[in-house]
């Protein structure tokens, strides 16, 4: 596949072409944060950003998602399917870690006997136009979790920021077909490709966190009762920021929202967090995860033990949001390092 060049001032042209058929989501600056929004003005797009605060998973798995709407007429009930699932979306400027999270989300929501039609339909109708990270932040650790700041496999179209222009590469057939519509794109030259290679190397070197994660699921499995969990949860305040803003977290609560003074409403699912006490509280009062220790343990085990067991890949994409945004500075990277230190102790025991 030959690569193309998109000049920075051509983004408006690209937008005007795409927006006819798609909802165009892109990173914009809002309240001093970067956030993915359906945009109407291509001038708002910000592409030289680190990453959005709320992951773009909210486009296919919104914080509040209507499961169905209902009308109550006395004893009779009418149910209506959720709308707008057939709309086509473009997510422009998504980072490689977040694009990888879409693979993890799709694995989970399509797995087993029950396919989550709502999310899977949205995923099918979504095209990812991602961009490599030229300048990763200190909290990024994608290279430790099988990722890369220039990982393009999880996207449909991959862009590289070459200062005054973007290198454009179609990855999937969906992406390649879309590029074919833009006949006005110039061809990339040999020096453009070389420049992209250089940027890739530079970005990889810029990621300073290197975590050893080999066989972490096998270390975690027998250490369910290990004191490391008490240590890891000591400063946790149970706010749930780490899981609400995690691009791979999938948990939700289901409630009925009634329209006041009207006989109608909707059943919605809302993001939930395993860091909350209510998350597992039984009606009887019993709680299987009664303290922060069990709840922090569940979050880490889910990403690094349970998810790998069920899907053969790590449940973390290394975006660093939980590290950057934790109000108590409970650093996932430090916890992982502590876990990996368990290993030699065990081996010592065997040799003694």
């Amino acid at each position: 596949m030959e690569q193309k060049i998109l000049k920075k001032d051509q983004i408006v042209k690209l937008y005007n072409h795409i927006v006819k058929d798609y909802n165009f989501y892109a990173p914009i600056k809002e309240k001093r944060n970067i956030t993915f929004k359906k945009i109407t003005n291509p001038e708002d797009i910000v592409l030289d950003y680190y990453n959005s605060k709320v992951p773009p998973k909210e486009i296919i798995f919104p914080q509040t998602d209507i499961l169905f709407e209902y009308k109550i007429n006395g004893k009779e009930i009418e149910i209506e399917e959720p709308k707008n699932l057939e709309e086509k979306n473009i997510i422009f400027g998504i980072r490689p870690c977040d694009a990888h999270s879409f693979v993890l989300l799709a694995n989970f929501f399509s797995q087993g006997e029950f396919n989550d039609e709502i999310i899977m339909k949205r995923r099918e109708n979504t095209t990812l136009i991602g961009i490599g990270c030229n300048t990763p932040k200190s909290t990024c650790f994608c290279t430790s979790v099988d990722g890369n700041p220039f990982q393009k496999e999880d996207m449909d179209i991959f862009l590289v920021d070459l200062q005054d222009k973007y290198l454009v590469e179609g990855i999937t057939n969906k992406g390649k077909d879309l590029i074919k519509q833009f006949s006005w794109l110039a061809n990339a030259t040999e020096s453009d490709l070389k420049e992209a290679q250089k940027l890739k190397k530079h970005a990889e070197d810029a990621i300073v966190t290197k975590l050893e994660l080999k066989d972490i699921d096998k270390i975690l499995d027998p250490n369910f009762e290990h004191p490391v969990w008490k240590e890891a949860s000591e400063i946790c305040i149970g706010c749930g920021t780490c899981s609400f803003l995690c691009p791979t977290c999938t948990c939700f609560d289901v409630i009925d929202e009634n329209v006041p003074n009207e006989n109608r409403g909707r059943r919605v699912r809302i993001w939930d967090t395993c860091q909350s006490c209510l998350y597992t509280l039984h009606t009887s009062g019993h709680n299987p995860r009664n303290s922060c220790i069990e709840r922090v343990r569940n979050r880490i085990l889910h990403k690094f033990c349970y998810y790998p067991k069920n899907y053969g890949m790590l449940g973390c994409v290394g975006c660093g949001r939980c590290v950057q945004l934790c109000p108590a500075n409970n650093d996932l990277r430090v916890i992982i390092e502590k876990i990996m230190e368990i290993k030699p102790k065990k081996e010592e025991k065997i040799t003694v």
Partner: protein
Amino acid sequence: MKRLWKLNQKRRRKLLSNPYIPMLTTVKDIISENKLNDIKTLDLIFKNEEDYKGFQYIPGQFAEISLIGKGECPIGIASSPTEEGSIKFTIKKMGTVTSGFHNCEVGDTVGIRGPCGNGWPIEEMKGKNIVVIGGGFAFSTLRSLIIYILDDRHRKDYKNITLVYGNRDSGEVLYQSDLEDWKKRDDINVILTIDREEEGWSDKVGFVAPVVKEIAPSPDDAIAVVCGPPIMIKTTIAVLEELKFKAEQILNSLEMRMKCGIGKCGRCNIGNKYVCIDGPVFSLAELKKMPSEY
């Protein structure tokens, strides 16, 4: 059994593409089950014949039942698939949704999603002596199992059946008319017990575990099914192990907080297993391999 279950799910999926949309039923009958009147059984009929045909379940499975506008909760199916025409749920009044069910009137609409979960392994239990041990309110799926086994079409597949059912007092004993019927039969041994002596009570007195110890069911070719409050399960399992029941021969049905019932909302996990799809029925052998977080 697993394959049968899978087939059912496939059939169900055809009916419902959005797995969160409930099928609608009408309340046909409401029965108060105890003296305190905080446990009621709802008898439901599907509004749509097709939905009923698709709702193929086995004893031990549960369903997500909802009052539209109030909310949804997972409840074990109390009826047996052999009781055709309707399905029953026995509900204790606890929170908003369950109180809503208690305020239901005949003719009200109730939503159902399901059947969910694996259910009792009725195929693997064939040819075995069955010891059913229940305590208190957690008896609904055991009722389903016993009705299923005692049905003429299935009774020959199973050997001796022993039932031990314990309660706090005589006013809390559920399904009294079923128990009367079973007591009259000679192909099931019914042993009832209450915690403290009461006037007019002719059955056993004492906790479930010592009663099981006293009657000492043989572990030979047997399966023990245990359902009840955690302390009862704990003490009863100790007794069964004393009686030389192997971990593979002891079955439990777990409870967990759930929202979706289809393995997506996340909260009912024990390790990498989800109680709603991998359970709620687990053998003690399986539970011993899982983290003790339930």
